[in-house]
């Protein structure tokens, strides 16, 4: 029994990362109908930014206590990562959108931007892995045979809070209404006096900012950074978003946790090398049965 509860907690933590990244994917896709393949690498950039921010704040120049650093690093990391996301949108996606290029070209550009981020990171910082400093003192609570660390609690609470926040923004505010409007009809919305570009930039700020938060929390939980850390987790988060039905915030949230549970379940039963195989196989099966995901709306084409 203890073993099962312990694994459920692990799955919740693992699923929280997926959910956090999948939310960013879903936001951008919901508004732009564009798969931002660079999102996993923005998460990686977020982790690196968190590393440098924490190093700077802890360092001799400022010298804050670790807890203060943690409190300051969250907004700083989110802000800087959001800047990276907006920069990508400005430089790569917006000119293509202005030209009215085929969606395919935008997707390829996104894929390539991800590769550029990874390899330029490798070129600039080298292949040596970085060790993330410990910001929050680890406290471990024991309930019978189950151990619970405060980091786990922070991660899970953060994922739920971000989900609630995004849900509120998209469903209750004016800017969220504009987002939903753009995804509904891109051509009629500017006629209503809604600035499309600003809304899209805001979407990128939200998505990239939460990717940065996920990067910070990930670096605190698994404190080894390498340039390719965003690749696989980005793909998996994307799978989570697709399984939930891309373009739907609830779908991304539940899909992330579902994928977390599946992976942790696979690892407890089979050898851990089978994890990716199962994750991708499940994606294929779900897409085969329900091409639009669990929560997605079926799209009809007019003839």
């Amino acid at each position: 029994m203890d073993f099962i509860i312990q694994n459920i907690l692990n799955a919740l933590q693992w699923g929280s990362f997926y959910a956090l990244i999948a939310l960013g994917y879903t936001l951008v896709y919901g508004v732009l109908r564009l798969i931002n393949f660079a999102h996993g690498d923005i998460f990686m950039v977020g982790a690196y930014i968190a590393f440098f921010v924490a190093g700077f704040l802890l360092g001799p120049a400022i010298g804050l206590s670790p807890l203060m650093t943690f409190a300051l690093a969250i907004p700083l990391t989110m802000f800087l990562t959001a800047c990276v996301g907006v920069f990508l949108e400005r430089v790569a996606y917006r000119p293509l959108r202005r030209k009215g290029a085929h969606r395919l070209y935008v997707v390829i550009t996104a894929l390539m931007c991800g590769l550029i981020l990874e390899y330029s990171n490798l070129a600039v910082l080298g292949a040596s892995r970085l060790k993330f400093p410990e910001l929050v003192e680890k406290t471990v609570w024991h309930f019978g045979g189950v151990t619970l660390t405060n980091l786990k609690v922070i991660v899970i609470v953060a994922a739920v809070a971000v989900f609630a926040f995004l849900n509120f923004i998209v469903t209750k505010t004016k800017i969220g209404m504009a987002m939903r409007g753009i995804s509904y009809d891109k051509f009629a919305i500017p006629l209503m006096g809604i600035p499309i570009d600003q809304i899209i930039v805001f979407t990128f700020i939200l998505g990239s900012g939460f990717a940065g938060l996920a990067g910070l929390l990930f670096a605190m939980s698994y404190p080894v950074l390498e340039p390719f850390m965003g690749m696989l987790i980005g793909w998996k988060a994307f799978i989570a978003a697709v399984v939930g039905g891309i373009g739907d915030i609830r779908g991304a949230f539940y899909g992330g946790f579902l994928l977390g549970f599946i992976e942790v379940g696979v690892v407890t039963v089979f050898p851990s090398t089978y994890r990716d195989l199962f994750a991708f196989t499940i994606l294929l099966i779900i897409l085969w049965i329900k091409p639009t995901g669990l929560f997605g709306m079926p799209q009809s084409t007019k003839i």
Partner: protein
Amino acid sequence: MRKYTLNVLMAALAVVLLLMAQYHVIDNYIQAVVMFVGINIMMSTSLNLVNGNMGEFTCGHAAFMCVGAYVASILSVLCFGSKFGDPLFPESMAIFVFPVIVIIGGIVAALSSILVALPSFKTRDDYLAIITIAVNYMVISAIENMDFIGGSRGFQGMKDTVWAMVDSTPGWLAGDNDFPWVFLYVVLFTGLSIWVIRRFITSTYGKGVNAICQDEVAAEIMSVNTNKIKTVNFMIAAGIAGCAGGLFAHIVGYVNPQSFNILKSTEAMVMVYLGGMGSLSGAVISAVVFTGLMEVLRSQAIMDFLLAPATFVFPEWEPSAGVIKWVMIPLMLVLIMQFRPEGILGNKELSDVFPKLKKYYTFK
């Protein structure tokens, strides 16, 4: 005469290349580059079938190359190697069995492409892109979990077949030097694959592929069996990629699942979009250009020269060519997408760009 000029030219070029390889006019390095050009031509033209002519978006083409490479390698070691027990065939059979091995690898890769073809009936471009990438990861992950063929440590032993071919060469053919059998077969397979693709895409049956690209619903109404055409197209593309993988395995003599990852797929994609979507001659030209560029970027000296301004500002920064290459290639593709999304030729053949060429060959 007009119909056969190009074919005669190509055959002459192949023979000249072979003779040069035989009498060591070109050394082993240049031979290897020419062989990789052939393999990249196979990869780019086959991906062009799906991405260019059919208008679907596949970015996991290396998966089929991986399947072909592994199947061909295992068969090769079974037939002529000593890893899985005694060789099945005597050495003298190697020359005839080798192309069969490569073709079987292609056939298995074609069968594995049904994994992609079946979901593609229902799903559209974005989701198909995900499925293909998932298949790419799945194939790599599955092979890494098979311990009897080395798992993630890779697999070797294909060179036995190559040596068997060299040893059993008849005396009148070889003279004093080793006859470059793999080179010969790469040239033959490249020619064969271009021939197959051209015949397929210009036939009445293959016109359905372009019809799907234009408008799937209309094609369905005009009695094109879209599902069947999609399946056939995917299978031809994957089969050719599988043959390319088998040849690749025999050139290098070592395969590793990680050498067929998403980067390999990206290379194939870059070649297709550089050459121009739906243009066969464009795919061939871009494969030649791209392979040459890769070889040039491989050298540290040229890379240092290119990055001289940056290293002048940051003297302690020492970039390595292998890493910077992978910054430059995606950057190239991004710039192509921004400024000339149609590629070098852009949905035209060479004879459309230079009409005078029509005197010498027709693309019909």
